[in-house]
Each structure stands twice: as structure tokens, then as C-alpha cells.
């Protein structure tokens, strides 16, 4: 009975949504979007603050934002305030988890660990860690960036926790890394106010599009975000592995 009612309610909502989409003339149908009508056109041409020429990979130098990856240029430059909020969301939910589990200390052991498992996971641990760091350092050139990179670091920590019962990462080190990288992100933002009057102003030269050392503050911020996200999520996983949440 309840299921039928729920189904009817959802069907009404779905009818409302789909007809609403179909009747709205302004809403372009799937695939027929004209970017010239959207603000993204200027993000792609990198001419938000004034006309610029065609951007060419490996040639254009000192555009207003230097990232070759457009998504990164939006996340870490045009809309960095959203990203700061995003980091804060993770920060506060990690804080909430540690408030809920913080009084527990004993770690839960799921399996008996053995030598082969331990050695193999140590090797994989290093590999994942390097890939994670590569991802956020090259976030302005290749897909990826601070968030997946940080999440990879956290998953390598998870692997070690699962494989090795003696593995102990110092939770206070995580907290220090989290706190310092978060504060540094804000300090970079405030430096922008000091240098030019705008919060998070990109005060470094943006270099040539496509080079490793380009895009101004973007790689620095992405690295800090990667470290912060990595340590936050490692903290969350550490808390979830603690015993005592249950009887």
C-alpha cells in the first residue's frame, strides 16, 4: 500500500519534471547547447576581463588564467570560492565524524594480517600514493586535480589499515596537515587582497598554457587542496575503523 502511494507520488513528480523540461523553450535539448549564450564561452576563450586572442596550446603565454584544463581553470580560479566552500564541507563533516567517534581509541581488525599481504600492500601503497600526488600536481594539465588526488591518498591509507593490523598512522599528524594546508589556502587568498585588492587574486605569472610550471597559483592551491582532502579523508577512514561505535 505504502509502496503504491510512494509510486504515485514519484510518478506525479516525474511527470511534472519531464513536462516542465519539455515545455520550457529556453531549455536546450540534450546535445543542442549553444555555448555562445552561456557564460562558459568566456571561460573557454579566457577573456572574462577583456578581449583576448585565440588560446593555443603550448604557445599562448600569460592569459588571464593559465590552465590547459578548462574545468580546473574554473574550479581553481574563476570559481575558487565554491572550491573553498567545498573544502569546508569536507572539513566540517570530518570534524563531525571525529566528534562522534573521537572518544574511541581501539582499532578494529577485520582480518588476520600475514606477511605476503603486508609486503604486497606496502608496494601498492607507494604506487597509489605516487599516482595520487601526480594527479593533483598535474591538475591544471590533465583530468583530475586536488579532490581525486587527495581521495587516492586516503584510499592508500585505507589499504594499509586493512592489510596491516600493526599499521598506525598518527592521527594528530593528519590533523596538523589538515589545519596547516587549510590555513595556507586562506592565506594565499588573503595575499591576493594585499597584492591587488581581490580575494584569491592570481598574483603569480600564468606562464605558457600547457607547461608544468604555469597557471600561477592554480597548482599551488590544487596541491594544498590535495593534501587537505587527503588528510581529512584519512581521518574519516581512521575514525570509521575505530571500535566502540557499537556494543
Amino acid at each position, binding site marked *: 500500500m505504502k509502496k503504491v502511494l510512494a509510486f504515485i507520488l514519484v510518478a506525479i513528480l516525474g511527470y511534472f519534471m519531464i513536462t516542465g523540461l519539455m515545455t520550457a523553450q529556453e531549455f536546450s535539448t540534450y546535445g543542442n*547547447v549553444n555555448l555562445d549564450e552561456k557564460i562558459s564561452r568566456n571561460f573557454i576563450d579566457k577573456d572574462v576581463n577583456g578581449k583576448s586572442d585565440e588560446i593555443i596550446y603550448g604557445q599562448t603565454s600569460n592569459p588571464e588564467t593559465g590552465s590547459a584544463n578548462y574545468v580546473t581553470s574554473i574550479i581553481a580560479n574563476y570559481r575558487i570560492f565554491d572550491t573553498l566552500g567545498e573544502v569546508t564541507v569536507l572539513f566540517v563533516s570530518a570534524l563531525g565524524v571525529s566528534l562522534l567517534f573521537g572518544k574511541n581509541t581501539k582499532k578494529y581488525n577485520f582480518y588476520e594480517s600475514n606477511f605476503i599481504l603486508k609486503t604486497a600492500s606496502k608496494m601498492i601503497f607507494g604506487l597509489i600514493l605516487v599516482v595520487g600526488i601526480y594527479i593533483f600536481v598535474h591538475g591544471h594539465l590533465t583530468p583530475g586535480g586536488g579532490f581525486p588526488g587527495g581521495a587516492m591518498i586516503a584510499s592508500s591509507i585505507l589499504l594499509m589499515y586493512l592489510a596491516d593490523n600493526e599499521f598506525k598512522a598518527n592521527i594528530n599528524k593528519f590533523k596538523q596537515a589538515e589545519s596547516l594546508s587549510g590555513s595556507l589556502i586562506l592565506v594565499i587568498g588573503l595575499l591576493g587582497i594585499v597584492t591587488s585588492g581581490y580575494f584569491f587574486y592570481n598574483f603569480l605569472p600564468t606562464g605558457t598554457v600547457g607547461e608544468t610550471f604555469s597557471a600561477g597559483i592554480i597548482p599551488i592551491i590544487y596541491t594544498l587542496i590535495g593534501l587537505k582532502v587527503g588528510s581529512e579523508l584519512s581521518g574519516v577512514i581512521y575514525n570509521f575503523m575505530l571500535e566502540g561505535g557499537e556494543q
Partner: protein
Amino acid sequence: MNLQILLIAIPLLLAFLSLLLKKQSNNLLLVAGVMNVAFLTIIQKGTTVIGGFQPPFGITLVVDNYSFMALVVLNILFLTTILMSRNSIEEYGSVLLVAMAGLNGMILTGDIFNLFVFLEITSITAYILASKNNNYKNAFHYLVIGTLGSGLFLFGIALLYGMFGTLNMHDLSIRIADVDSAVIVLPTFMIFIGLAVESKLMPFSSWVKGVLGNADDIVAPLIAGSYAATSLFVFGRLFSQVLVIDSSLKILLLTITVVTLVLGEFAAFSKSKIKEILLFSSIGQAGLVATLFVSGLVLPAVLQLINNVFSKVVLFTITGKIAKDTDTDEIAELRGIFADHKIIGVSFTIASLSLLGLPLFFGFYSKINVMFGLFSLNIYLIPALILFSTIIEGAYFIRMLLNLWNTGEEGEKSKLEYKTDKIVSFSKYKKIGVLVISIVIVLMGIFPSLLLDNLYGDKTLLNENNPEYIFEIKGGM
């Protein structure tokens, strides 16, 4: 140089640092609260852009008359709440710092997706605060409803972006004005649902009872005060400026808000616990304020909102403390409790009477504005319902006050031996705090122009319902 970014950046920086200085986090919270109130005196009206990118491409922070008023209300409420209940903060200092940053961000931002991000930050802090004192099940309930609501809110934003190709609120309002308003029915409704969850409008407010009914003397005044004020101010910003609503949807939204008002007051009438009475009264008041915003009466809505949140902070702080010390908030068991606590009792009474809208209190002034505003729009059904709900409100508030002051049974002569044997001890911060707020309520009631003159320096605003004046600086183009 505009410094409004510091209202967000400083609490956030202190929140990050408070992980290292765990023991100092409550002091950092006070520092941030005082600094934010101090910043209010030097903030200039105007717009700043983040990263130096021009609107509508970059994210803007907007301080106009409307958001300045909201910032003043929010930061003063927040600071008084944490000052009055500083012993109850415990280890939640860092969470409150993030909450402060998020609430200020919600009011300041001029970008609709950025609003979503700040909405999520504040709701997550609210979920964590709701779980204080082992109230996990209700906090979980709140989390599920809140997440669904903000998901629908994001769906609405995505639709707006798909239609108009921009996220800046001012740019959006210009482009929306050009099209037939039937186009934006679906996104408007989705955004309405998202904000209705946070503003406690009726079908989406099922979380309120569990959360506020079990909250202590810091969580309850925060959620019924600062959080409620912020979400209603944001509601007003979106529904009276950005999303101009077409008539058929307007009727639907007005129905929801008016029903919230009437049902909320009826539910409050039928309860016997102080907290439940107050929380249902909050729901009803949220319905009233939302009704006014949807009708386009911005100034009366803001006045009513201010009256409601300041009164509610006093009432919830006192009730939260009583419930914490005595483990009950049944009126029948607390008979005559104010006989021993005269200052607290007087403040409680003033706050309640102002909420009712009796003369001499600020509530009278705001109710008068509400009524004249609605009559000027030639709407008569809604004022009738508002008057009707005020009568219900009066009945339960007077009943509650009589019982809390009077030591005897109802209708009998008061005798000392009927007085409750429950003991409450109020700290001097609480006594001073609630007394100051009630004095302010009385002063603003007698000299209503004090508030508005100091904020705007323009008396004409008092008699004219002129929304354009409030939205002086739009999204910053």
C-alpha cells in the same frame, strides 16, 4: 577596499586553526564573533568580486541595504547566543566557527551556486549541532530531509543554468524578467522546496519537532534564531528579487505558506510542553514571513522576521536552560518557576508579548506594518487568517505565561505550596543577555525609528513599502 570577505574568511581561518589549538577553540569562537560584529561598523556597501573576475563570471559578494540588515541581525544574534550559553558549547567550538562563516556566506553571496555551497556548509553544521546530547536519530532524520531538499535546490539551479546560461543572481533576474514566467515554474518550485526545508515550511518541516524539541540552551536558540533568520533572509532575497513568480504558482506557494502559518499555530495551541509550543510557533512565524516575502512585502517581512528571531532567542535560551537543569519542559511541572527568577521571567514575558504583537513592544510595530502592507495590496483573506492565528497564538502564550508565573492551580488563589520544586540556576551571562535583548525589544517598540534610522538614515522608508529601496545594489553588475 571592501572588507566583507573577512566576515567569512576570519571565522574560517580560525576554524582551520582551531584543530591545532583544540583547547582554545571556544575562545577563538568568541574572538571571531566579536570581530564579525566589529567589522559591521567598517563595512561599506557595495560589491566585491572574488579573484578579480568581473561579474557575472566571477563570484560576487553583495552588501546592499537588505544584506547589511541581515548581516547585522545575524552577527548580533550569533554573538549574544554564544555569550549567553558559553558553558554549553563544549567541544563544538570549531563547528560553530564554520557555521558562522557559512551563515555569513549565505547572506553575502551574489551567486546562486555559491549559495548552494554555503547552504550545504550551514546545513551540515546544523546536523552536527542537532546530534548534540545523543540526539542521533532526529539528527539523522534532519540530515535525510535536508540533503534531499538541497539536492532539489541544486536541480533547480541546474535548470536555471540550462535555461539562462548564467549563475549570477542579478544577471539571472534580468534574463528572467525577459521571458514568460511560466518557463521558470519548475526551477522555482524546486528551489522553493530546498529553502522550505531550512526555513521550516510545513510539509518539509517534520524534522523540527525532533531537533528543537530535544535541543539544549545553545542549539535551540541557534537553530530557531541565527539559522532561521538566515534561511528566511535568503528566501526573501530569492523570491522577492530573483525569481519573479507567475500568478498560478504564486497562489500555490502562498497556499503552502499560509497553511504553514495556521497549522503551526494550531499545533502549538495543542501542546503542553514549552519547547513544543515554541517550535510550532516558530514554524507558524516562518509561514507568516514567507507569505509576506512571496507577496512582495519585503519591509514588513523583514520587521516581522527580526521580531520573531530576537524573541525566539530569548525564549529558547531560557527554556533550553530550564529543560537542561530540570529534565522536563512540561508546563504543568514548572508551575510558578518564574516566582524565583524575576529577571528571567520578565524577559520571557516581554519576548512572548512582543511575539504576540501587543502595543509597547516591537512586535506591535511589525504587525501594524504587516497589516497595512497587505491592505495596500488589496488582499483581505490573508490578513484575516493572520489575525485569526494571532488570536490562537495569544491564547496559548497567555496560558503559558500565567502558568509559569502563577503558583496556584488555574482559577484558584495562588498558594506558595503549589510552586514547583524544580531548581534552575541561570548564569549571570544569561540574565544580562536576555534582559538586554528584552530592553531592546521594548525600546524598538516605543521608538521604532531607532532601528531603521540608524541603518538607513532615511525616515521615508518607515511608511512606504518600497522594495526597490531595500534592493539598492543588485547582484553587482
